[in-house]
């Protein structure tokens, strides 16, 4: 009797638990799900109209998407975002991978200190980094230039590459590069032929993070960019603070699609890296 009640209680608890989890997942998805239909709103509001809820076709429109394509400011910001993110990612990957490979040496003196310095840009609040770089870049005349933005975003992106490549190196079988070296391969060749292919998923993942960081960054841009260097987030920021128009929702929807693409890429990379680990017998 008591056991039965306990079981009934635990079953209730089980369902309650599942319901709570369902609500949390709903909380996670709701903001993303809500934005997409709102971006097709024919009216200039951030809310569902009665016509939309009754699914009348004339309540939906692509006008906000056309708005993006017709607006030279948006087009410029898209161009700037891709330029800055591309070069910042490139620099982050090169500098970050080299540093991670160097630090991988077991008894690197001051390793912990150096690692904490290399990682600090993602720990220090972005507003402080932005203020510091604002003072500095203005002093060296890199304020209001794309070059300045690229360098600043490299600072913010490189820690991710250091972290992911360090993690990939720790999974690497240390016998492999040693075997290559003992067979006479010079260090550079060992790296590019043996180590690099093994840690490639880590490098890509770090690059992906660096790209996403730059692509989504607005605070540093607020400080360093002029009108000509506006990026997508900066343009959205202006829209949110000046005139709230559903164009922002259309951009948001496109960005969600873009992030789905990114996450699928990341997932595929992860699977590939797992497969590689299996093949390498680790």
């Amino acid at each position: 009797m008591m056991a039965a009640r306990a079981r009934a209680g635990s079953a209730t608890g089980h369902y309650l638990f599942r319901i709570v989890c369902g609500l949390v997942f709903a909380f996670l998805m709701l903001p993303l799900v809500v934005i997409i239909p709102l971006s097709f709103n024919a009216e200039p509001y951030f809310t569902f109209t009665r016509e939309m809820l009754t699914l009348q076709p004339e309540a939906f429109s692509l006008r906000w998407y056309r708005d993006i394509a017709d607006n030279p400011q948006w087009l410029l910001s898209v161009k700037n975002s891709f330029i800055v993110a591309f070069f910042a990612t490139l620099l982050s990957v090169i500098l970050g991978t080299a540093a991670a490979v160097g630090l991988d040496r077991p008894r690197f003196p001051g390793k912990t200190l150096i690692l904490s310095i290399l990682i600090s840009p993602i720990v220090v609040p972005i507003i402080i980094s932005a203020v510091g770089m604002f003072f500095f870049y203005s002093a060296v005349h890199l304020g209001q230039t794309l070059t300045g933005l690229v360098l600043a975003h490299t600072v913010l992106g490189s820690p991710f590459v250091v972290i992911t490549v360090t993690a990939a190196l720790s999974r690497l079988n240390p016998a492999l590069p040693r075997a290559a070296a003992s067979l006479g391969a010079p260090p550079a060749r060992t790296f590019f032929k043996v180590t690099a292919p093994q840690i490639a998923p880590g490098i890509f993942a770090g690059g992906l993070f660096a790209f996403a960081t730059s692509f989504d960054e607005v605070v540093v841009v607020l400080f360093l960019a002029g009108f000509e260097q506006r990026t997508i987030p900066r343009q959205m920021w202006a829209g949110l603070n000046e005139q709230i128009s559903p164009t922002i929702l259309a951009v948001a929807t496109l960005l969600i699609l873009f992030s789905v693409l990114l996450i699928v890429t990341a997932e595929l990379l992860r699977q590939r890296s797992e497969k590689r680990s299996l093949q390498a017998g680790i």
Partner: protein
Amino acid sequence: MIEAGKPGLDAAFAVVRAIGLPEDRKAIEMERREHLVRGVAAGFHRARAFLLVAPLLLFLAITYLVPMGGILLRSVDDSALQTYMPKSAAALARWDGAGLPGEDTLAVFAAELGQARRERTIGRVANHLNYRMSGMRSLFNKTGRRLAAADEAKPGHPSWGEWLAELDPRWGRHQTWTTLKAASGRYTSANYLAALDLRHGEDGGVIRQPEGKRIYVKIFLRTLWVSLVVTVFCLLLGFPISYLMAGLPPRISNWLMIMVLLPFWTSLLVRTTSWIALLQSSGVINSTLVWLGLIADNERIQMVFNLTGTVVAMTYVLLPFMVLPLYSVMRGIPRSLTRVAVSLGATPLTAFMRVYLPQTLAGVGAGSLLVFMLAVGYYITPALVGGQSGQLISNFIFYHIKASLNWGFASALGAILLVAVLLIYWIYHKLVGIERIRVA
């Protein structure tokens, strides 16, 4: 034993072995060569490792560490008077602070003020001093204009003191001159005092700001409080779903993980925007509540552009940072332990509390510290959905850089925030280890 097993050594040993020295000398010779080879190899490898790390380290040192140091310098910088009116600064520093400065000091001051006006550097001094005492800017500009225009100066007056006091009675006040004396040095603690709602009194002692100007202690406390609340909410929401995912087969838990990571990968501005769309008074949630008849059309709840908006949106944004470490720790805890406890007679609740929960503490600690650390410095979300009551310390730093242009004060606020965050980072490092910071 430093370099055992490094590339090239195996080959070297093979050579040594192949030489086939007599048994008794072999050990000694081996050791000698080994030592030599290892020393050279170690030096070579160390140099190469340094060369690999150096570019990023150098890059960050120049473009990041120097700017961070710049913030600290700027927060204590008080050199405006010394730079642009050096003789006055020296004379004021010598003044004993009793009564008003002597005639010599005033003459030097008047000469340099007129000169600063002519050389158009007066604005820098005036702006800087205006943060010490409001009204200083207009006083300097007004006086500078007169001094620059009339080189003959003080016509018909016996002293500079009288001439200045006649031009503006503020020059006859003790406080004006003590403020200038306080600014005559190179460094100041005034910005830090102001950040803690304190200031220098007329007698040089530290006193509290007047009632209406005590803002920043409140803002710091609010920032800490909001961060704490957000951390607790993230834990309350993140714990159950991490527990659920850790117990499911990977095929399903991977899909759920994507639901956690999708917001993580989505633009922060997009997520914040959608909370505006959801929470505003004409937004989705209020409209749904009205439609369901739960609230009347005229009593829509204000959930955004205030503290509530900040807390909700920040909890949402930071939740993945809680789930990731929790999940990775929980995945390593065998569920069989709880089952064993139950089979030994513990109730499921006891088994969970006494067996499972203690093992999750590493994840709880890592996730909470991470969320708290990120929350303390949050800028964008409070700026967009916080309204007046939901602004945090970062927002005030931004305001003082961009709007009030009081860069020294903004730097002091930033430095305090920086120290707080580095403290949490250090605790995180001690408890969790920075090598274990993982992204996704």
